[in-house]
């Protein structure tokens, strides 16, 4: 396997992706990611130096909405799925130090 994924990399990706893996899962993830990257490295066979990256396949441009208020109060509906709710707000573990 050409791509060897270190413990640090898996740890780092876990922080980025907010995933906590068990030791077994980490080992599996290192293996899986390494082999996927080996596979993706196949793209390196193609010379793309003169090719622009393509985000959208066809040119849809300039899609706008007018600056007009169209939404009313949807608070109660939107809060209906919240795992934690208080005083019309979403509750999360404390963020302040």
């Amino acid at each position, binding site marked *: 396997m050409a791509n060897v994924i270190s413990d640090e*990399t*898996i740890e*780092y*990706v*876990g922080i*980025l*992706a*907010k*995933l*906590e*893996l068990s030791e077994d*899962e980490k080992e599996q*993830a290192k293996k*899986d*990611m390494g*082999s*996927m*990257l080996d*596979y*993706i*490295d*196949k*793209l*390196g*066979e*193609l010379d*793309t130096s003169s*090719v*622009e*990256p*393509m*985000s*959208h*396949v*066809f040119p*849809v441009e300039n*899609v706008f*909405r007018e600056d007009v208020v169209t939404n009313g109060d*949807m608070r109660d*509906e*939107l809060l*209906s*799925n*919240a*795992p*934690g709710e208080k005083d019309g707000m*979403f509750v*999360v*573990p*404390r*963020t302040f130090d």
Partner: protein
Amino acid sequence: MKLTDMTAVELSAAIKEKKTTVMEAVEAVFEKIAEKEESLNCYVTLDQEGALRRAREVQKRIEAGELTGPLAGVPVAVKDNMCTKGMLTTCSSKILENFVPTYTAEAVIKLEEAGAVIIGKTNMDEFAMGSTTETSAYGATKNPWNEAHVPGGSSGGSAAAVAAGECFMALGSDTGGSIRQPASFCGVVGMKPTYGTVSRYGLIAYGSSLDQIGPLCKDVTDCAAILETIASHDEKDSTSVKRDDTDFMSALVEDVKGMRIGIPRDYFTEGLSAEVRESVLAAAQLLRQAGAVVEEFDLSLVDYAIPAYYTIASAEASSNLERFDGVKYGYRAQDCEGLHPMYKKTRSEGFGVEVKRRIMLGSFVLSSGYYDAYYLKALRVKALIKKAFDDAFAKYDIILGPAAPTTAPELGKSLQDPIKMYLGDIYTISVNLAGLPGICLPCGIDGKGLPIGVQMIGNCFEEKKLLRAAYTYERARGTFVRRGEV
């Protein structure tokens, strides 16, 4: 003819001719469900009461002459990644185990406006990541043709429900083949429209630049009727395209004379099973006999589509799935000390293995120092693949090939080796990268008694050519015995 053997368009016509009613159609579907659902597991959520209530309402409106369209009164199943107001929408994930949307996806609204009756939400690979419907948090769906086999995925629940007569038609979504491949495995018709044809508003995103909603149904006529109904220019979706050629039923014409059909040699290489190969080539032969000009050509770059796809789709997915964090909706892990531990525990417990695998890969390819080498490289390769299709469509009206290298594999055989599983998407994935429309319809049955599908690919916005070719082939092929009728 038994009610559940009818196609959607036939059923609607029968209702309008007063040969049956919407309530009878809904009841017939729920009888099938009672009979088969326990073993097949096509649905995550069913709503018999709501469907019957709605059926009565639709029946009245049909009788009042208010609903006249070809799908009025037809019971429909919706893949569980499309939001339905007031009805559980899980993406087959634990992380959305209790999520009840406050609004309905635009494509579903279009079906409702046409008088279709939603009966439930179909099972899928978790967040549409998979090709077997085995990654669902709510159990695998079985293939109605042989319950030891998978129905394909990720829209496996929708495809199996149509094949088993547990609905008359269904919506699926296709990011890398998730409509066409299960259609192939379940012996039904499935179509992915040109990117931007059907609104993505309310479709819970996997790979936003690739996702597209489309029909899973019994025949090409139903396919055209559904597509005509759900295609719309939606101002809520910036990537929605304004088209004035969405009268797709007008393309149901039996005529391929002079139509140029290209068969990519690169699709008929070692990985392809001999039975699928024979069957697909026989389909091409039928079209040739009907007057099409069929020839082989080299599409090129076929082997690069999968790595490009998994880079782009995983990158977009890693970002799209960040919102599932236990704050606003869905599952939240208990007993967490602090915000970040809550995020991590919620997501680690809420997402399944395959979803985590793609989120990790996607986060990595976008991370500092790798963005250019992986993500931008993949977008450049995507441009090359698009160019290869542009060149092909300069010569051909339609590209014809298989939808998958084999028929449906056995349950439990695919997930151990992700890359091997990903290779199964080789014929469908590049269509998403290039934004093209593709249709899959049954063309044979293999030695194990499993259906084989043929895929036809059109140029962007040329669904009508595709439907004309598919319709002509379907007529030439003759009746294909659907599972529900066996």
